[in-house]
């Protein structure tokens, strides 16, 4: 039987990488649970309300998008629309060209990962420097992020020290503090030399047109303190209806992502700098990016557009913890990625159609989601889509269920199979030629066969009034 791609990747993962990813994601999950439950009476209700707010936005984007556009314009922001990744990159390039700008510093934004903005600009002769420490390391390594919030969760300090040495950032030193100080010294010159600062946005308020940006390192603040032009690339689903909803979502975002009460820098930006302020952009652009989102909106998986990119579902996912982010072969890894990546892939859906199967459907991702996305349901819908579209990737490693279906639909065959199960109790397991069973029993004891008990119970179960045994009541 052919393994699924994600299993193949996970099997080939270095022990060190697996340990980094496992420890990092577990730490994130533990911190999240502690802060949310220590701080709030009913953190679960916060999630549910936040989910309802975002679902409302998603289902009313036709009203909110023009509203946001009008607010942004009234605040002095130049608004652009980009239907595709190419259009978004082109919009950035034309802003740069119009200013004769050659250098950009950028903060971490997932949508610019989707459009591969940095590569695009570099081909056009523009220096584009990632300023988030993790993203900076990814950039000098020519690597890809493996986590939405912690892009280098798959790397350890020795690997980072080696690439710093290779790229002229000092002699080998793997002390995290030294690594950080060297990046500080290197990047501050980049900020001060840059013409344009590019960021994403975590939220936009439709009420005030304020963009909300959160970072811990202060890099997006530096981008907006040192440069003269600000470009924000924003997915069309980032809207919140009211300013007060920002308070609810901000209370959830940092706690869910990193277990912090609030990220260190939470910026509310509604336009170019104030006239009296000496530092910061005199010009501000917002690019509203679709890049597949309207396809998701038209699908039965539109709930995934609620996502606020906190990474909590990655941290809790048993598959992500073992496989790491690169196994998902796309910008968004983990449970959210297993839904979003195949959908955003558009025509290339079949190539990623195996991702929805990279889940045990345990439901932990739904349970931790700050906007309560029913990820397991969406995964099932996408599995169905993969099957209907006859995707080869989706079919890989699917156990043949035909034999089981025949057996389960014929009482005589089922009874016979139960007897077969009983025989296993009396056989030494190493003689049963099923590799999976041998691997499983290598470290565990197979419990005694209990087959048939349910049928016995079903037949003799206490029934107060058998006349009421409609199919509805026996569920």
């Amino acid at each position, binding site marked *: 039987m052919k393994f699924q791609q994600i299993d193949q990747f996970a099997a080939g993962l270095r022990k060190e990488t697996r340990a980094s990813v496992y420890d990092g994601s577990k730490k994130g999950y533990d911190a999240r649970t502690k802060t949310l439950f220590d701080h709030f009476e009913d953190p679960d209700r916060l999630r549910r309300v936040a989910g309802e707010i975002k679902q409302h936005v998603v289902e009313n984007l036709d009203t909110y998008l023009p509203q946001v556009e009008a607010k942004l314009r009234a605040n*002095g922001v130049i608004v652009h629309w980009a239907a595709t990744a190419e259009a978004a990159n082109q919009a950035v390039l034309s802003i740069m060209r119009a200013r004769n700008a050659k250098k950009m510093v950028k903060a971490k934004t997932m949508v610019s990962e989707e459009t591969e903005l940095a590569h695009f600009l570099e081909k056009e002769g523009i220096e584009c420097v990632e300023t*988030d420490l993790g993203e900076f390391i990814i950039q000098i390594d020519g690597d890809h992020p493996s986590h939405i919030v912690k892009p280098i969760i798959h790397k350890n300090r020795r690997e980072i020290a080696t690439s710093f040495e290779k790229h002229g950032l000092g002699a080998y030193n793997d002390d995290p503090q030294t690594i950080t100080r060297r990046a500080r010294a290197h990047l501050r010159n980049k900020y001060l030399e840059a013409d344009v600062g590019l960021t994403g946005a975590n939220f936009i308020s439709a009420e005030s047109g304020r963009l909300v940006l959160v970072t811990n390192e202060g890099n997006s603040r530096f981008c907006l303190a040192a440069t003269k032009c600000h470009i924000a690339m924003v997915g069309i689903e980032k809207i919140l209806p009211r300013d007060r909803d920002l308070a609810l979502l901000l209370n959830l975002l940092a706690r869910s992502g990193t277990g912090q009460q609030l990220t260190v820098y939470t910026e509310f930006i509604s336009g170019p700098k104030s006239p009296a302020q000496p530092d910061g952009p005199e010009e501000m652009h917002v690019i509203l990016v679709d890049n597949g989102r309207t396809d998701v909106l038209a699908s039965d998986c539109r709930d995934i557009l609620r996502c606020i990119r906190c990474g909590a579902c990655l941290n809790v996912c048993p598959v992500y913890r073992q496989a790491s982010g690169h196994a998902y072969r796309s910008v968004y890894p983990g449970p959210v990625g297993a839904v979003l990546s195949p959908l955003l892939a558009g025509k290339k859906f079949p190539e990623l159609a195996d991702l929805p199967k990279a889940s045990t459907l345990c439901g932990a991702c739904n349970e931790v989601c700050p906007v309560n996305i029913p990820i397991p349901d969406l995964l099932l819908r996408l599995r169905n889509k993969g099957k209907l579209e006859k995707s080869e990737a989706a079919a890989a490693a699917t156990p043949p269920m035909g034999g089981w279906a025949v057996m389960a639909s014929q009482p005589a065959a089922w009874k016979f199979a139960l007897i077969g199960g009983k025989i296993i109790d009396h056989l030494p397991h190493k003689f049963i030629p099923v590799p999976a069973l041998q691997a499983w029993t290598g470290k565990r004891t197979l419990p005694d066969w209990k087959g048939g008990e349910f049928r016995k119970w079903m037949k003799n179960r206490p029934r107060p009034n058998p006349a009421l045994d409609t199919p509805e009541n026996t569920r």
Partner: protein
Amino acid sequence: MNTTDREAILSRVRGALAPLPRRAPLPDWETELIHMRTRRGDVDAWALFQERLRLVNGLPLEGAASLVTWLEQNGWTRGYCDPELWPRLQAAFPATFTVETTFDRGRVDDYQFGITRAAGAVAETGTLILTDGATSSRLAALAPWVHIAVLQRAQIHVDLQSAVTSLADDSNIVFCTGPSKTADVEGILIEGVHGPGQQVALLLE
């Protein structure tokens, strides 16, 4: 502006939403939902703020004299101060200090500290609020190793909700919660990544 992309996106959005039999309503939610457990009856905002600021490794100080002592202890004697604040602080600073009231971006690393005014604070999170209107220089509040934000008691909000619903009419508002930090390398906390490694709130009435 690309009008064709605008029309394409909006028409696709309308097309995607048209088949929905009904749209999800906007829920109302009561402010109590996000009240923290630790909330006490009549809390002294400055006391709570100090406690919370320390939890995020920030430092609360009261009065110019205590700031000067602390800076001297750490050997930080070169810095920037908001020109409107300097006349009030100058008397407390001995001649061993070099303090400038314009921030020269050509030599950002010459400043060991930057003193600016805060526009407010949030007690329950230990957050300092900076705005374009109150903060004399974005860079001076960011590039030096030490940032000192001058604050008054009346400016402190008890919780995040109150601060977010009374945001100033300012195009750039920043909530700073402790020193700049990262945990990108093996999850180990390092402070002072791009911004200050020391975040001080100075109460000055």
